Every structure is written in structure tokens, then in C-alpha cells.
């Protein structure tokens, strides 16, 4: 069974002398959403970046990231198999909605017709039927967010990182998208690491919460 393990992780930003937070050790079993809370600036997103391999230039970090028993700490992001969702959906603006999803879809699905069918099915599940050729810029915020999640899941990641994915949405859209995300990750049975500063999001995840504090 997949599990995402963070072992003794400590990160120091460029120019700083002290790490952002005390060493973090966590295990997230598959199918579970772990919410990391904490004040802004404590390094929640930096932790996500480290786990995904996206840490910027100049950061010093120690500790290990283990996915499904495999140490991925030294791997480049594209070899980790860890998906990521940002606050903005980050759909590629030059591709259509369907092409965005096809970009994500794993190469294990090789046949053209099958790839198209998988993308169409994912669109349908996200309530985006018939929007394959649409410009992502013309979608509503909620539609874009769902498309971004489907794009991540089509890559068949071993784990998923959520970097305040609901912060850009309001009210009902936000609640809808939240339950949409949690339903899908349960179904995919992967570990999910979510950072948020909103207690509501953490409550909705209905699972463990960890609070990061400044060292």
C-alpha cells in the first residue's frame, strides 16, 4: 500500500540562518488527507515544494521524502510521481481544456482513441462534458479548479500535494470543490498532503491535522 513519509525534514530559506520550523516527521497512509496548518510565513508551501521537488534556488534542506518505500528525495520532480495543485489552477493557457488533461494523462495509456476516451471520461466526471476544445480562460473558477484536479489525477500520481487549493474560491463553489477533491482522492487511494490556513478546510478533510510553528 502507498504511503507518503516525511522524515526529519528541515528547510532554511536563502539568506536565513535558522530553519523555518522544527524538523517535521509524518506518515500519511494511502487514502488519507493530512492537513498541515500554521500561520502564514511559517513555510507550509515551502514544505510542499520540498516534497514535490520544486524548491527554488538557494534553499537549504535536509530530511527525506519516501513514497511507497522508495526514497525520492534526490529525484527531479518529474520522476517522483507526486502531483500538485496550487491555489490557482495553473491550466496551461495555450492549450485547450482537453489538451491540458491530455498533457497530464499518463503515457501508460498509449492508443490515441483510448487517450481521448480517458480525457473525455475525466471531463464528464468533472461536469465539463463537451468542453474539450474550450479555452481554459473562458471557464468559471470552479470549472477550472476541477479541470486542474482531473489533470493531476490523470497522471496517476502516487501522492498528491494540495497547496491551499481552495483559497481562490468562495462560498458554495469552495465547498463543492472541496468535497469533489476529497471524494476523488479517496477513490484513488493515494496519500494527500494539504496545507491550508483555514480551519474549515481541515475540518472538511475530516482527518488528522498537524500545526507548523516557527522554530
Amino acid at each position, binding site marked *: 500500500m502507498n504511503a507518503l513519509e516525511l522524515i526529519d525534514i528541515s528547510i532554511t530559506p536563502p539568506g536565513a540562518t535558522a530553519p523555518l520550523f522544527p524538523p517535521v516527521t509524518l506518515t500519511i497512509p494511502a487514502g488519507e488527507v493530512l492537513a498541515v496548518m500554521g500561520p502564514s510565513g511559517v513555510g507550509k508551501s515551502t514544505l510542499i*515544494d520540498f516534497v514535490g521537488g520544486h524548491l527554488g534556488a538557494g534553499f537549504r534542506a535536509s530530511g527525506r521524502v519516501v513514497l511507497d518505500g522508495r526514497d525520492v528525495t534526490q529525484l*527531479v520532480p*518529474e520522476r517522483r510521481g*507526486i502531483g*500538485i495543485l496550487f491555489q490557482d489552477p495553473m491550466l496551461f493557457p*495555450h492549450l485547450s481544456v482537453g489538451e491540458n488533461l491530455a*498533457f*497530464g494523462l499518463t503515457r501508460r495509456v498509449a492508443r490515441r482513441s483510448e487517450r481521448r476516451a480517458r480525457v473525455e471520461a475525466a471531463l464528464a466526471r468533472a461536469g465539463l462534458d463537451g468542453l474539450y476544445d474550450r*479555452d481554459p480562460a473562458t471557464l468559471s473558477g470552479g470549472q477550472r479548479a476541477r479541470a486542474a484536479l482531473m*489533470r493531476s489525477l490523470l497522471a496517476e500520481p502516487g501522492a498528491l500535494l494540495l497547496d491551499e487549493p481552495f483559497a481562490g474560491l468562495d462560498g458554495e463553489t469552495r465547498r463543492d470543490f472541496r468535497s469533489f477533491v476529497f471524494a476523488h482522492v479517496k477513490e484513488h487511494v493515494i496519500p494527500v498532503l494539504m496545507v491550508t490556513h483555514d480551519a474549515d478546510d481541515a475540518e472538511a478533510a475530516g482527518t488528522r491535522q498537524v500545526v507548523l510553528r516557527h522554530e
Partner: protein
Amino acid sequence: MTRSDGRGLRATVLAVVLAGLVLPIAAGLWHTVAAAFGHLPAIGKTEWSLEPWRQFLALPGAWTSVKLTLWTGLASTALSLLVAVGAATWCYGRLGPRAIGRLIAPFLAVPHAALAIGLAFVIAPSGWIARSVSPWATGWSVPPDLAIVHDPLGLSLILGLMVKEVPFLLLVMLAAMSQVPAAAQMRACRALGYGRSQVWLLIVFPQVYVQIRLAVYVVLSFALSVVDVGLVLGPSNPPVLAVALTRWFLAPDTKLILPASAAAIAQALIVLFAILIWRRGEVAVAHLGRAWICRGTRSQTWTWSSSAAAVSAGCCLALGMLALIALALWSVTWRWSFPAALPEMFSVGAWLRPGSGWGRAALNTAVIGVLATGLATVLAVAWLEGEDRAGLPRARWAEGLIYLPLIVPQVAFLYGLQVAFVWAGIAGGVAAVIWAQTLFVFPYVMLALSRSWRALDQRLVSSAAALGAGPIRRLLAIKLPILLRPLLTAAAVGFAVSVAQYLPTLFMGAGRVPTLTTEAVTLSSGSDRRVTAVYATLQSALPFLVYSAALAVPAWAFRNRRGLTGDPA
């Protein structure tokens, strides 16, 4: 591909830039310096001495040339900046950046030389202005004997430079404005009782100036060392130093080469000296500005000065436009006698004979332009991509090297470079011209591209990586397509720079590679206006077409992509 591969890429690009760009300039400067002190084995001189300097200063008109150079360079730059700043003040809140951009874009594509030739057609005693007011206002039935073009004070040279530099500085300022929270500051300061022009000058402009300083120095260096515009519009006897020393270099008499080398080094020192003077001026102006700010004087009433500047800028644009129309008109003229306001007979004859020379020149120009631009763009993308992949902070010192060719005057190292080429056994020709032009195209492509490249949201790239896309796929499928518009714009800028190159083509082509620019400049001195106009029109049209394509292609490709049709990042 890992970080260390990224470092490898960056090291490779840096090595290419060092070997292809910095080293040649250094070698060129070195050979010029050596020749300036009497050492040029090629013509049998191996003794180090100060004799070339004595010869240079003893050449007739040498001192006048130096003085003319400083005067025209500093005056044209100061006036251009003044007019551009005033016009920007006036435009602020009246015209959006897009409107201004559309208004001045044509002038950015047109080479200096073409604009200068067109301007001469307009302001000369036999030019369009004189024709349109004669004989009814002036009584002239033959062109008056006035030295308007080639005037000994260099006024038409200054005007010619302004026509091109005012729009350029205006555009650079607009780009820099987007980095300054001008609207908020404007509101805050007006609430304190300051007038709009005053806020712009005292609060917004200082922040903008810091960002455009390099561009101003480039304009200054260019104005001090330009050869083609100097030949077309500048004083003729004695000319500005850059023109004089080009003549000496190209003279059949090899005795002039050593003093010409001394003059080339003097030219570089003049640029350095002028930048130092300019820097002192900046400090003085900043000092005055601070004192003014501290006094707290509120003034709502000097909109007249910004209006005056806007009118001046408008005149520059109008003159430039007239110059371009004059070129096109002359190119289809058969008979246009003085003082008729318009041609009496038209003919497309000149256009129907590409074999007369313009066909080959246009082909050379296009081929050299495309190759030099392609090389420079690939190098720029490799540089920026290497920076991304290496995960290292930007190397400012290395960026400084890139812009070296924009500050060091061309004449100071081109002759030495030719010597180095001969020494290395490389013959002058098309390949040498392409390479020499790339020296000047690359910095402009970098300038035009790097801001947009660095502004690309890194989370898009991270998203692609998290979906399993490796570095090559991220570059080809995500970054380059999203950056298509700035990429093509940068390439168009590069192409325009290439088309405009005069000296590198002349020197490195060993006179065997005629381009539209070299031919137009040569023809401008007294030849048939109709033929000159064909070359100059083509010279303006070619970069303009490329610019239009650079705008049209992404607009068409992304016609259904709203996220990419706004202003480039």
C-alpha cells in the same frame, strides 16, 4: 536532467558567449590599441610609439571632429530624454501604453539610416518642406543655397537622432512604468496637493529612470559613435569623429591606419568620458530634485512644459512619418522638379529592376538578418533556460558582459577585429558579417526577451513537472509556446537591429557583402534620389514586415486563447 546538467548548459552558453562575443571584442580592442601605439605588423609597423596619436591630432579638423562628436552626442541624447520625459508626463492618464505603443511602433523597426535619408529628403533645401512652401511663401524657384543637411553645427544630425531616439526612450519608459506603482503614488501625492506633472517628474520619473539608465547610456554611446546617420545628415568637413575615422580606416593610403586606430581609441574614451559627464549630471539633477521636494512647493500650473514636450515629441513623430512617406514617394517618382509639392510623373521602373542591385542587397539583408537573429535567439533561450535549470541565482556579472557590445563603440574594436580575423586566416565575407552582427543582435534579443521569460509563472512549469514532463518537454510544450509572443517580438527586434547594421557589415564583409543599409548610405551622398529611395524604403519595409508578422502570428495562433492575447508579461 538534473541541476548539474543545468549548470553544464549554463557553462556551455557562457563559454559560447565568452568565446564568440567577449573574446572577439577584447581581441579587437587589443589590436586597435596596439595599432594606436604604432604596432601593426600587417603593414610592417612594429615599433611602439606615440606617433599615431600625434598624427591623429595633426590631421586637419581632428579637434573640431572631437568637439562636434561630444556636442551632437550629448545634445541629442539630452534633448531626446527631455522631450521623451515631457511627452510621457503629458501622455500619463491621457493615452494608454497600448495607444502609445501603436503610435511609435513603426519607428522602432525602421533603421536609423533609412529614417535619416528620409529626413534629408524632407528638410533639405530641395526637400519636401521647401517644396511645399515654394514658391508662394518663399519666392524660391530653385533650391536655395543653404546648408541645412550637413550643417556645420550638426543640428540636422541632432534632429535625425532625436526622430529615432525619442520614440525609443518613450517606449522604454512605458515598459519601466509597469514596474512602478505610479497610479497609487499619483493619487497619494495629488491628495497632498501636488499637480500631476509635478508628481510625475519628482516622484514617478526618478523610479523610472533607475530602470532605463542602461537604455539611456546605450542611446548616448550610439549617438556619440554613429557612422551611418553621421554620413547622411552630419557635418561633412570636418565630420564627427566616428565618420572621420571610418574614412581614414577605409582610405587607400595605409599611412592613415595608425592615426585612425588612435582616433578609434579616442572614440572609446570619448564615450567613457561622456558617460561620466552624464553620470555627474544625473547626480546634480537628483540633488536639485531632492531640494525641490524638501521645499514642499505645490505647483499645479506647469502643464505647459509637458504640453510643449508633447508637441516636440509629436513633431519628431510627424517628421519621422513624413520621412518615411517621402522615401516611398521618391521610390515611385519619375519626374519631380522643384518646387512642385508632389511628383509630376510616377514610375515603378526602379522597382521592376531588382537586377540593378537592390535584389541582391535585399536578399543579403534578409539572409543575414534571419541567420543572425536565429543564432541570437537560440543563444538567448539557451542562456535563460540554463539559468532556470541550474537553479542558481542570476549572474549579474555575466549579464554585464552581454551588454558590452551596446556600450563599447563599434568603431573602437571593429578594425582590430578585422585584423584579428586576417591573423586567424578567416576571410571576410557573409559568414563573418553574420557573426559580427550577432554580437549586436544578441544583447537586444536578451533585453527584449528576458523580462517576459523571467515573469513566466514558475508554478506553470512546476505543474508540468509534477505531471511527469521532463525539462525538454517543459521547454518545448509549455514555456516556448506560452512565450511565443515575446519570443517573436524579441526576434523581430533582433532582425531590425541586424538590418540596421552598417559598420560591421562594411568592415567584416570586406566590402563584398552589399546590404540595403550599406548601399542606401553609400547612395545617399549625392546619387539619384529615386534609386536611394528604393533601397531606403526596402530597408524600412523589411523589419516592419517582420514586426507585423511577429504580432500577427501569435495573435492568429492564440485567437481562441484569451489567457494569451493580453499584453505580454
